[in-house]
């Protein structure tokens, strides 16, 4: 039997990993994947809480999140492709045209 607390812990770990990935990895594609991890952390938490509370609201929410995440990634990848075409790079560190 998996308790809500375990779900929360697991999702918290996923969230932290995701944030760390976005902050530390320099490749935008990897960052996008880490972002997915943050969203999945939320999904996991929602599913776990849904079970704990005994209603389905959380699980329905998960479906919305999956859909929206797909849209987000689609747009994100498109932008990364444009960036790569323009600058031949997918590294955030080389984005330094706008500063100060």
């Amino acid at each position: 039997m998996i308790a809500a607390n375990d779900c929360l812990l697991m999702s918290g770990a996923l969230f932290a990993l995701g944030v760390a990935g976005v902050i530390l990895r320099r490749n935008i594609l990897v960052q996008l994947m880490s972002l997915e991890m943050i969203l999945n952390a939320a999904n996991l938490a929602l599913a776990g809480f849904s079970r704990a509370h005994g209603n389905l609201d959380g699980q329905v929410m998960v479906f919305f999140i999956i859909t929206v995440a797909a849209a987000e990634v689609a747009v994100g990848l498109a932008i990364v492709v444009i960036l790569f075409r323009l600058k031949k790079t997918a590294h955030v560190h080389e984005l330094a045209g706008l500063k100060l």
Partner: protein
Amino acid sequence: MEIHLLKSEMAVALLMGWLLLVDLFMPRIPKRYLARTAVVFLLGITGWLVWTGAGVGERWMEGVLVGGGGMFVLDGLALWGKEFAFWAALFAMVAGMRFAGKDDDHLVERVFLQLAACLGMMLLASASHFALVFVALELVTVVFYVLVASRRHDGLSVEAGVKYLIYGAMSSGVMLYGMALVYGATGSLGFAETARVAAQPTPPMLLKMGLLLMLAGLGFKLAAAPFHWWAPDVYEGAPTPVTAFLATLSKGAGFVLLVRMLTVAFGGMKEFWLPVIGVMAGLSLLFGSLGGISQTSLKRLMGYSSVAHTGFMLLGVAAVSCAGLGGVLYYLTGYLLANALVFGVMCETSGENPYQEIREYAGLGARSRWLAGALLIGLLSLSGIPPLAGFVAKLLMFKAAWQGGMTVLLGIALLAAVVSLYYYLNVIRHMYAGEPVLTDGLRVPYGVKLLQGALAAGVVAVGFFPGPWWDGSLMIVRALAGR
């Protein structure tokens, strides 16, 4: 079914569909005409909404209709938000058409996306359930990822797009996780249930944590420090009409959600979130006003200015009084008009000055009296000079802060007002007294003159006769707080 509550949203969705289909199947119709037709239709929908109050009734500011099992509300704040979305979209669309000029090819797509963002804010204004909040907010945000990067041949636009994408996606992730925690604490995603739990003497830890995460996520939308880091970069890099849209619609959406969420869902936890909002207000004021001092690009400056204005408005939220929250709505009205003026002029001059260097505005006063005058009124209103809208708005915020007993914040706000006055006046100085870089006259079509004249008159009218706008805002907020 309560599908009739969604009339205005459906009208916009239909308009979007029509636009897409006509563009697809009748490629020979010039894009310009399609875009103009869309503007006219949107204007029609706006007029219809204003005229009928969307069925809420004659006293729409105080009435309320609820649908979707409490998921969707139609009250004063919602209608106000929808109208804000309409006007912001209209101004941005017109600015976009003037901006597009030569690269006309993606005009219809851009209008389509702007309508989508508008639809997002309309839904957001009515949302009182976190699922709807999330979907509507993402609709706005994802559309903006595309819009910001829409000058695909321009490295800075794409760079801004990537920055906005990663930063924004992380912020929505944080906000979403906050929602999950709130769900964990309350067992429901509706605002009503949340309010019940939040009103307990000691709200659960999870709820507090969730609220903090959501505030952080919202801080991104509002460009509120310390979550504002993206703002100057993205404002500078994005195409000018998109920056205008970002400054108005995106911020408006954030504030409408913030006001509803904090008063309806978390009204019982005032003591908890009040200091957080206060700190955000103070930091935004400092970063926004001081950071803008030595900027050389007007667009980037507007990014800092937008952060500072967020600070002023958060002051009203932090006052947790009807006067403060009503002041926020009034502030947004004046802010929308002034920004539409400033960015409208920027779009007119964008051909020869793509990055909007302030020194290239030198001699604008001689090149076109109209544009210079419009920019002057817009900037003066933003800096809070009487009798323009920005002045009364700031005054209301100061008063709310004073009555809320926030003397330190008030001091910071006064300081910020003075400092930001410096950088706005600097632009005006360049405009009228600077050594001109360009000297040829600018031709402004009559339609644009008419629009800018109307906007300037609006700025003056809202500031000179604050009565009706202020009363309306107050009524909306009172009705919201009274429920």
